[in-house]
């Protein structure tokens, strides 16, 4: 073999390893999706903390390469770096860590001051189970239907946790769908809130919540964890970590731990979770008819969840005295997109009465939604795992 042949042969082999040689149209579609997510995050400011890692993860996961070359670089190739990072998603240990951070960030005062708002968080879980029934009608098996339906909880970590247990093959599509709709909460929810409420209802002014003592804030995570986990032990990884994080915050003696859980730890896990979830959407796994079904069901679950929260408040108002009526605009916050959906309640409330600040009232159902979706996830795991 002369030197020229040697060069040509090796360059040809190298060419066969490149992305250009191995690319398919599906790869380019997914790369476009990734770029779209990054654009949404940077230009439109839609959940940038999530969409930037997911969008870039989609780019990483869809760079084409020769899967038969044994390079150990793909996210599904055992032992690769991405595969090791993906273990937190596939084995389901990133979501409880995120819940620890959420607990350490969340102030449950609004809920403690007005415990009846917890029921709005429960009502919004109709979205999950409504979507479950429709998914069964579309031909998904009960475990797949449960994994898809959890999108209605509007809780990305919970969606990932449940899908990793019930339908690992659908996890990429479910996670991307859940985070996409969470980012689109400001677009999806306001029309529904206007549709189901009258102008008079939107102007209901709620009494300011009472001040909550520190003792109550400390008791809440302890009692909350024990009660909810005794009812649904299968929700322990999520609920346990959520309430543990909150105790770190409220105890007043673990400020450093609470700060780490709510800042550094959450940031690290969010980066790894977002990036690996994005990278798991390889074109061959993602571009299927099932994915379209999952996105449609996810949208429907979101619509049902938001609507049922609003409608439940209207129903609840029928039995409440005039002085204790709840503004139905906070019903949408029963989904656990914290604090985005509470902010939407507040903004919409201000449109109809500039002196009507609903933010703190909406935070009650909003954080109840986090607990509710974790309980619903535990129920699904208990019945179907």
């Amino acid at each position, binding site marked *: 073999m002369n030197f020229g042949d040697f060069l040509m042969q090796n360059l040809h082999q190298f060419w066969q390893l490149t992305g250009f040689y191995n690319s398919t149209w599906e790869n380019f579609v997914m790369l476009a999706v990734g770029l779209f997510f990054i654009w949404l995050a940077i230009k439109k400011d839609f959940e940038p903390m999530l969409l930037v890692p997911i969008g870039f993860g989609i780019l990483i996961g869809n760079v084409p390469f020769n899967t038969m070359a044994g390079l150990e670089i793909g996210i599904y190739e055992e032992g690769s770096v991405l595969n090791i990072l993906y273990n937190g998603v596939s084995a389901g240990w990133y979501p409880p860590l995120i819940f620890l951070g959420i607990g350490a960030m969340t102030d449950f005062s609004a809920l403690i001051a007005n415990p009846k708002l917890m029921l709005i968080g429960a009502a919004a879980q109709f979205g999950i189970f409504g979507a479950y029934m429709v998914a069964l009608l579309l031909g998904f098996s009960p475990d797949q239907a449960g994994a898809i339906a959890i999108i209605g909880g509007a809780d990305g970590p919970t969606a990932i946790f449940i899908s990793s247990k019930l339908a690992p093959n659908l996890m990429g599509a479910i996670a991307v769908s859940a985070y996409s709709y969470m980012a689109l909460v400001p677009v999806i929810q306001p029309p529904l809130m206007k549709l189901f409420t009258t102008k008079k209802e939107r102007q209901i002014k709620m009494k300011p919540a009472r001040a909550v003592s520190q003792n109550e804030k400390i008791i809440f995570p302890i009692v*909350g964890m024990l009660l909810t986990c005794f009812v649904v032990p299968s929700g322990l990884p999520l609920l346990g970590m959520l309430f543990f994080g909150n105790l770190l915050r409220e105890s007043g003696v673990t400020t450093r731990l609470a700060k780490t859980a709510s800042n550094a730890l959450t940031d690290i896990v969010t980066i790894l979770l977002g990036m690996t979830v994005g990278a798991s959407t390889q074109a061959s796994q993602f571009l299927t008819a099932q994915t379209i079904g999952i996105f449609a069901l996810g949208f429907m679950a979101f619509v049902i969840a938001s609507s049922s929260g609003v409608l439940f408040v209207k129903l609840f108002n029928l039995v409440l005295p005039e002085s204790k009526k709840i503004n139905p605009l906070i019903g949408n916050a029963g989904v656990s997109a914290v604090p985005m959906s509470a902010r939407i309640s507040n903004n919409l409330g201000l449109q109809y009465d500039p002196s009507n600040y609903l933010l703190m009232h909406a935070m009650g159902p909003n954080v109840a939604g986090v607990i509710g979706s974790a309980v619903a996830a535990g129920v699904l795991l208990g019945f179907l795992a």
Partner: protein
Amino acid sequence: MKLRLIIALMVLTFAAGAGQAQSRGALRINEVMVVNDDNVVDDYGRHTAWIELFNSGFAPLEISKIYITNDKANPTMYPVPLGDVNTRIPKRQHVIFWADGNPTLGTFHTNFTLEPGKDNYIAIFDADGHTLIDEVTVPADLVPNTSYARSIDGSGEWQVRAATGDNDYITPSSNNVIKEGNSKVQFFSERDENGLGLTVMAMCIVFSALLLLSICFYIINRIGAAVLRRNKMKSQSQQPSEAATAEKPSHDSGEEIAAIVMALHEHLNVHDRESTVLTLNKVRKAYSPWSSKIYNMRELPNRAKH
């Protein structure tokens, strides 16, 4: 000092409890064959009686130092030796012990045999030699090449298996019930086709959990308010003043709390710990030589002038 001792004892008690939770209680005798003429062979290619143990738990189980016996009077008949990696049984998995009376052949060969035509008592005891983990008496009428097995792995009724049909098979070192997919999912597929049943159950559970929490905090609210009232009355009775007797609003607005905090800060410099109200925290940037950059740098030695 006494209090510390009590706390230490309580911690030790809990630790002991946790240790107990990790014990070998999940180990089960799962299947036994007394006369083995044409069934599974051991690692020497011989047909001998076998005892299958099953880890019914969902965590790996180390079984070295437990005892296997065929004599009620001698619970420490065969101690499972230390130092064999195969004595760690993964979750929901099985191991086979060969009851051939020849322990020199390896860890899984017991020093006793099972006797055909007689009731064979088999038991496993924990490392302490007297805590019974599981026991079974294999009936005398068990014919050759049939096994005595649990109907469900780790639980269920004992039954004779003769390998004669689809549901009557002998399964050394594997599940007594062959699983074809997730039984729960199959159950819901067959019995709850439209998902209404699961929806009703799940929503009832979600509502119950949050209602329970809501009621619980309603009660805690009431107790908290009562305690607050009592404390207020107590302090009023101790220091009666005109301001204390003034009527208080049922709730405080944010503005009032902010004003109080500002006043406290201005006049008393008292820091409020309530994070939801208004927290004024003086940021101190005190100089410390320990973090000073200048002390981390070595000065260049001065050139001596001659």
